[in-house]
């Protein structure tokens, strides 16, 4: 089952231009693992601000590409951090898995 919302992705392609979409996907696939890594270390070192900011950034990009589930998970974590709550259970692991699925699909969608 697809984890990328086709309508959102097509709209993005329209906005960016077909030639530019690959560059955008590459930038995201390059950047997102760093954001997730920063969330992990933010969580481990109790740097809530860094955790929150990176969750925010990941959410923003996920929504741009139509990775809705990833966007929702990131948003939930961002808002928990806003409430000073880092009791996130296994949410970060779930987020990583969701990202991997989205990333694989986006790689396929490169033209």
């Amino acid at each position, binding site marked *: 089952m697809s984890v990328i919302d086709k309508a959102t992705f097509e709209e*993005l392609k329209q906005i*960016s*231009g077909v030639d*530019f979409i690959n560059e*955008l996907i590459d930038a*995201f696939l390059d950047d997102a693992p760093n954001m997730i890594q920063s969330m992990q270390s933010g969580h481990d070192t109790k740097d809530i601000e860094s955790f929150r900011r990176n969750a925010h950034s990941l959410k923003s990009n996920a929504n741009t590409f139509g990775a809705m589930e990833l966007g929702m998970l990131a948003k939930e974590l961002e808002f928990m951090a806003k409430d000073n709550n880092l009791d996130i259970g296994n949410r970060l692991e779930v987020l990583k898995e969701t990202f991997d699925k989205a990333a694989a699909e986006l790689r396929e969608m490169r033209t």
Partner: protein
Amino acid sequence: MKSAHEPGHLLVVDDNKVNRMLLSRSLEKQGHKIDIAENGKQALEKLRVDSFDLVLLDIEMPEMNGYQVLEICLQDPELRDIPIIMTSSLDEIDSVVKCVELGAEDYLNKPVNPILLRARVNASLEKKRLRDEQRKLFRTFATKEVADELLRSGFSLGGKYVNASVMFADIRSFTSIGEKQKPADTIDLLNNYFALMFDAIVSNNGTVNQMEGDGFMAIFGAPIYYDGHREYAVRAALEMIELLKVFNAGQATQNKVRIKIGIGIASGEVIAGYAGTQHRATYTCVGDTVNTAARIEKYTKEAQRPILIDQHTKEGLPNDIEVESLGPILFQGKQLPIHIFAVNG
């Protein structure tokens, strides 16, 4: 007027690479020249060395966030006139409201819709162009303080009662020594004349706010109040007459036209405000005092005196300015006579 679609130099500030790429690409496609900054600190550095027409500013950023950048820009006289559009995600609406209240020009939700982007960016650029033009205009007509005050208040001064002195000045006669002069010479003459007169007014804290033909109106004490507005107005008038003497002497040696002027000043309560439309407007004053000043100026011809003032103005003058009573004069359309004084230069 310049086209609303003229390209500008824009700064895109976002810590997120994808957002930066998308925004810059969209804006480049719309013909603008784009620079990017990856955080608030970098943005301020760029804003201080280069000139920009517009900033698109992300709120969430490390180092220095968009909110802090906005605050610094708004407090910096060099930066506060650059419009800033906040770019944010949908769930940041509280921060966006805060930014707009603080003075951000507008906001856009990410991912940014290109049509909305075009509309907002062009509207902001157009507004900035108008402001820049108005600033240039103001700087020739008013002191830096007044120009800044008008721009700072965004021309939204509304109407309010203020105590001020109003001056009307008009050319009473052209004395030609030689033959009739050419049209180009006449315009040249007017330009030189106005430049001298405006210098006298602006250096005495006045603002020239209306021109009509060879006449103009100036305000002293508004939009920035000066205690000595009556004295400033009269000193400006005296300076105008002095400058005109020098001007006429110069004209005479070249066998050119000489000018005689009449100046009328009245002081009191006026309604001052910014009136007009979005595209053409001016800071102006209306009310009885303004009428009186206009009437007094007309009366200079009959009285054969270059500077006439009303009683209110006279009462605000120090002893070293000599005045002579011409008695009460009943002007057409006025119910009560007005006591008129001639100022001796």
